[in-house]
């Protein structure tokens, strides 16, 4: 076990180094940082001088070595754009991103797993055409009625959505098939479009939710400011969290469904039936736990990528997290921030991977006992 963790740590180190290298390689090409730093009046000679001072004229390997050396000490230098220590900058932005990521990840996980299980259990039989027609009629007719009554499209859509959710109770296989199809819309739309659409509907038209930022924040501890404790903070979280989670939610749901269907076909589930266990025990005790084993890895990786994935969501909602910091830095060629951000993402990846491995140990007794490395 210890050896295993050590081995993983070493691998992680290699991963971090590789990412650092790639990041570094890329930054040489994204643009000239001097441009943003000097302002338009600067003379060519001054530009050259600054390049020299920044070490941009040093040989490549020297620059990389300096970078790694400093990064190992948690030193990423001073942001070219904002002229503050990068570490401090990233730390001050971290709470926003982590809160957003945690909420979206939980949302994706809870809704994804629930829907995945639901569709796996109830989606085995295609809905009868009668069920389909009743359900469709129940959804479309009230919506049309509302529209004709002049309540507007949003009301109609709202009503349709509500009734659609209610089909989960009375038209289960219709609901699961429909969820499968509708969920594809979530992955067929670019995230930024979803975000802008949500802003348009919920902020501009309905004026229900804030369109940008984090609302009021409260400082908890050592600069960790949270939006969880204020109403505006919580309201501000809704749209970005939904936008960010939609994609992962769809993936998790489909993954859980596929794995669960596989598990439900296995011998031990058949045997559990033969033992006379009730359906609920079979689905939620036996099948679900077995489903989680393969789901953990992929989900872990997916959730890890939420933080990096947030760059687009954060941009659209002006969410003050590390993602929007990164995008702003890319535009200004703020190399120290970009490098630190990429390493940060790599770090998240490495940590999540370790957690996933440990979770494996917890969930799957086959790994716990013989203590050998590798996943079955």
């Amino acid at each position, binding site marked *: 076990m210890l050896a295993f963790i050590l081995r993983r740590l070493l691998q992680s180190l290699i991963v971090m180094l590789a990412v650092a290298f790639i990041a570094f390689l890329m930054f040489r090409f994204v*643009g000239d940082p001097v441009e943003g730093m000097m302002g338009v*009046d600067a*003379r060519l000679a001054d530009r050259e001088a600054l390049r020299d001072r920044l070490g941009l004229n040093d040989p490549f390997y020297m620059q990389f070595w300096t970078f790694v050396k400093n990064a190992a000490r948690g030193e990423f230098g001073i942001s070219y754009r904002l*002229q503050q*220590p990068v570490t401090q900058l990233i730390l001050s932005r971290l709470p926003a991103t982590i809160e957003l990521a945690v909420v979206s990840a939980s949302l994706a996980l809870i809704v994804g797993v629930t829907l995945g299980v639901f569709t796996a259990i109830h989606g085995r039989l295609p809905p009868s055409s009668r069920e389909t027609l009743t359900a469709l009629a129940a959804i479309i007719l009230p919506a049309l009625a509302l529209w004709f009554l002049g309540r507007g499209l949003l009301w109609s859509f709202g009503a349709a959505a509500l009734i659609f959710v209610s089909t989960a109770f009375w038209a289960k296989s219709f609901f699961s098939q429909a969820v499968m199809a509708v969920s594809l819309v979530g992955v067929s739309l670019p995230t930024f479009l979803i975000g802008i659409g949500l802003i348009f509907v919920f902020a501009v038209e309905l004026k229900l939710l804030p369109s*940008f*930022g984090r609302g009021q924040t409260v*400082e908890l501890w050592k600069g960790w400011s949270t939006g969880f404790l204020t109403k505006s903070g919580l309201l501000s979280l809704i749209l970005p969290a939904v936008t960010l989670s939609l994609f992962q939610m769809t993936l998790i749901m489909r993954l859980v469904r596929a794995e669960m269907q596989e598990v439900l076909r296995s011998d031990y589930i058949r045997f559990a039936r033969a033992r006379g266990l009730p359906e609920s025990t079979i689905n939620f005790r036996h099948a679900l736990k077995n489903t989680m084993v393969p789901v953990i890895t992929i989900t872990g990786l997916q959730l890890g990528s939420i933080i990096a994935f947030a760059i687009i969501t954060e941009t659209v909602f002006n969410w003050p997290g590390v993602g929007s910091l990164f995008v702003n830095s890319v535009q200004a060629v703020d190399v120290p921030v970009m490098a630190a951000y990429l390493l940060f993402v790599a770090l998240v990846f490495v940590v999540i991977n370790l957690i996933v491995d440990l979770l494996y140990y917890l969930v799957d007794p086959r790994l716990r006992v013989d203590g050998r490395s590798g996943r079955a």
Partner: protein
Amino acid sequence: MKIQRFAGLAALLASTLMASSAMAETLRWARASDALTLDPHSQNQGVTHNFAHHIYETLVDRAVDGSLTPRLATEWYVKEDDPNVWVFKLRHDVKFHDGADFTAEDVVFSLDRARSENSNMRQLHSAIASVAAVDDHTVEVTMTGPSPLYPNNLTNTFVMDKGWSEAHSLQSVQDYAAGEDNYAVRNANGTGPYILESREVDVRSVLKRNEAHWAETKPQVTEIIYLPIAENATRIAALLSGEVDLVQDVPVQDIERLKNTAGLKVETGPENRIIYFGYRMDDKPLKSSNVADKNPIADPRVREAMHLAIDREAIKRVVMRGNSLPAGVAMPPFVHGWTPELDAFPAPDPERAKALLAEAGYPDGFSVTLDTPNNRYVNDEAISQAVVGMLGRIGIKVTLASRPVAQHSPLITGDNTDFYLLGWGVPTFDSAYIFNDLIHSRNGHFGAYNPSGYADPALDAKIEGLATEIDVEKRDADIAEIWAQVQRDRVLLPIHNQLLAYAMKDNLTLAVHPENQPLMTMVTYGQ
């Protein structure tokens, strides 16, 4: 991070206490980007200066018409016996936010700091030989030579408190290339009409009215919440949903919609910025052209054809939705040296343009790549795109290369472009500012944004002479001559001057500032 906690509490308190007071007016001010730093001498950048103007003050200020007005200096003149010395008389009874008195020592300190090694403002003060305080309210600035226009360079140079700065070791500007941190980046102590309450970079800054400010009339806005929102759509959405009161960077296409929205209004006005196209016009072949043996643009007839191909009115009407002033000269009307004659432009004449091309030996046109930024100027990419079409119609096949400005600018400063779009603001309101960087041939001190290859030693000498010429009439004549030559040789291909638009709640009034540096002190409430 202490500020933040404090600010949270303060904001809470403030909002509860002041809710009843009719005088208290909070303004939520959104624009596309944040000030880069609070250090007033670190960056020479518009947004940063704009923010700093609320906290710090300059010696002289510029009025909307471009003229200089007193601010911390009440009067200034060239010393009678020495044309190289500028004398500034300072305002009395001015206090910094921390209560310290404003004196000549502070000005000396600030000017020295602004021209120190790491300051990005030092270019503006490169002609200074020394600065000295004569008495508590008089400062003498000795120049290396006659500098008649020097006060123009002072409109963005802010005065810091010497005592406060020394207490926080701020004598030199942050050398961030060396990894230094600096107190002034995140803290401010100025004499300005607003006091910094809290600041989260890129997120929000809160400013409170300075009740001890020297000005007689207090601004109506008692609190400013400054909110940078980078995405255009999100920024406009925030205004539409009532989450902000004022949006400074309004995309032209949204002006109509906002005007027609109940409760909102839009103010528009010209910006002191010219949008133009530049090209390589020396004899070396173009890098991106199918004509490999020579440079077609070097032929004046080709340049004329290109000018004739452009339909500025169409660009104004469609791309800019009417929000531009088409230009015939690469100089905003605010700038000293501008005349209506220079700014006249010919009606588009594609037929004549084609004939000229044929005459020059390119009956079938030629191909060239146009480099355009896509996130810098109002609809920059769309303008370029429209021009691609117009040039296409006379046979010049243009490939459009569109980049963020961070990648676009190096192409120009690094001589890596054949044909490009650029915008040029003129903070000094003087033609020399344009000539120095756009017209003068490139060397270590001039022509940083002139990749045209256009080089005329006589013209260069004339440009250099403008800086020290005291004889106003002679200088004006020189400027006119230079412009005449530039226009004759068609060194630049001007398109238009940008119009700025500010959108706000309709109970506010704020006029557009030509340098896009509006002061919230100017905001008035009521119809």
